């Protein structure tokens, strides 16, 4: 039996969704690590953000805690709605009153290369739809912000959790922004900022594009999670797609998702091993001869091309949770080293040592985040 060929430009679903063109591509979801599977830095361990601390937790998910007193932990969690294996879990271990210009947010930056087809900043700007699964110990109206890197345009989104501690599916449309500058290359296009708490000075009204002069963080009346000690909040299935209809989550192959993350952060350690772990597995490692040698150069090629020249941290392979400058000889002699010529494809680890008959090496991490 032979089969014919069905050739269609698009498919219109029973809900009116047109699948084709951009929405059927392999990059339907512009969020990277939206199902919170990848946690290269911490390998599932808790990351604590004290007051005035910012940094990355799960891959592509940053936290900036400028709450003026709250302590927030972020961790990969196995709590998830059906079909998902992980979520990003937030716990407010110490709450504080949000006042003045204080705020706490999670955020993901978008690279211009991956967003320029939206045409934002032009009359042809396309509508996007945000969808996600969320649960929180505090029911009520919560908020997020889409804003450009130039911090001139922002749109507040609200979502409602009607029942505490219950996974809730939320969607929101955002009309394309026809003004402002939105990146089109390897620089930052803009941010999705998830409000964990914000003073009124950090808020804008939801439902329309607002001209701003600095980044904003929430919407009036929305829940300030960071104000409540013991508050919890989880998210997964986070998706941003072109069009006005939320569609099913765009599950990608694990290796594909990992490679997308590695454009912004990668490491020498095995996946599943947190940075700073005492291990030689994955380390750049060499044995020096019996003759006393001096300069030693260790070329490192990245797993995938990075967004730009990354910031390099060299880690002591013999252990210790704190970054270590340079290389190590069998744990006995700490040698001063450096990372030279970082670029999007690699760098050179360099150590000028007079050691001989020595094992010398290091672990590394590379970050080119937005």
């Amino acid at each position, binding site marked *: 039996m032979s089969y014919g060929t069905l050739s269609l430009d698009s498919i219109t679903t029973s809900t009116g969704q047109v699948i084709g063109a951009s929405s059927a591509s392999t990059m339907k979801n512009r969020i990277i690590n939206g199902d919170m599977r990848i946690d290269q830095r911490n390998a599932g361990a808790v990351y604590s953000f004290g007051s005035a601390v910012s940094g990355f937790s799960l891959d592509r998910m940053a936290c900036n805690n400028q709450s003026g007193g709250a302590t927030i932990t972020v961790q990969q969690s196995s709590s998830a709605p059906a079909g998902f294996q992980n979520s990003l879990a937030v716990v407010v271990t110490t709450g504080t009153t949000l006042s003045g210009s204080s705020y706490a947010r999670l955020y993901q930056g978008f690279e211009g290369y991956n967003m320029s087809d939206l045409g934002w900043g032009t009359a042809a700007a396309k509508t996007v739809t945000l969808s996600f699964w969320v649960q929180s110990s505090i029911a009520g109206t919560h908020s997020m912000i889409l804003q450009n890197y130039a911090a001139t345009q922002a749109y507040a989104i609200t979502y409602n959790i009607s029942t505490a501690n219950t996974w809730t599916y939320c969607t929101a449309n955002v009309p394309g922004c026809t003004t402002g500058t939105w990146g089109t290359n*390897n*620089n930052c296009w803009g941010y999705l900022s998830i409000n964990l708490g914000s003073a009124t000075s950090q808020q804008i009204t939801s439902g329309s594009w607002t001209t701003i002069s600095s980044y904003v963080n929430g919407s009036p009346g929305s829940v300030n999670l960071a104000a409540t000690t013991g508050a919890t909040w989880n998210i997964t299935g986070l998706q941003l797609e072109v069009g006005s209809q939320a569609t099913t989550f765009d599950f990608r192959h694990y290796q594909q998702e990992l490679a997308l993350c590695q454009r912004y952060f990668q490491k020498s350690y095995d996946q599943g091993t947190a940075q700073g772990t005492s291990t030689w597995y994955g380390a750049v490692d060499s044995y020096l001869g019996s003759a006393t040698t001096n*300069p030693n150069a260790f070329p490192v090629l990245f797993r995938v091309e990075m*967004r*730009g*020249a*990354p*910031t*390099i*941290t*060299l880690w002591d392979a013999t252990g210790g949770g704190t*970054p*270590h*400058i340079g290389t190590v000889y069998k744990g006995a002699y700490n040698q001063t080293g*450096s*990372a*030279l*010529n*970082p*670029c999007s494809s690699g*760098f050179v680890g*360099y150590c*000028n040592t007079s050691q001989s008959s020595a094992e010398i090496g290091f672990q590394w991490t590379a*970050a*080119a*985040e*937005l």
Partner: protein
Amino acid sequence: MYKLIKSPRNEINVVQRLSDTAFIPFDPANTDYQEYLKWVAAGNTPLPADSGN
């Protein structure tokens, strides 16, 4: 505080952030480099590179 890093070819294209020992490339697209430039613009000066390498 930052410290300039010199390569064996006497090139300086990396600065080290002493708070966490990270090596930051002179790449305008690097967010850590952008923070370094703000720090310099605020009137600060990095430590000089070591004379030899």
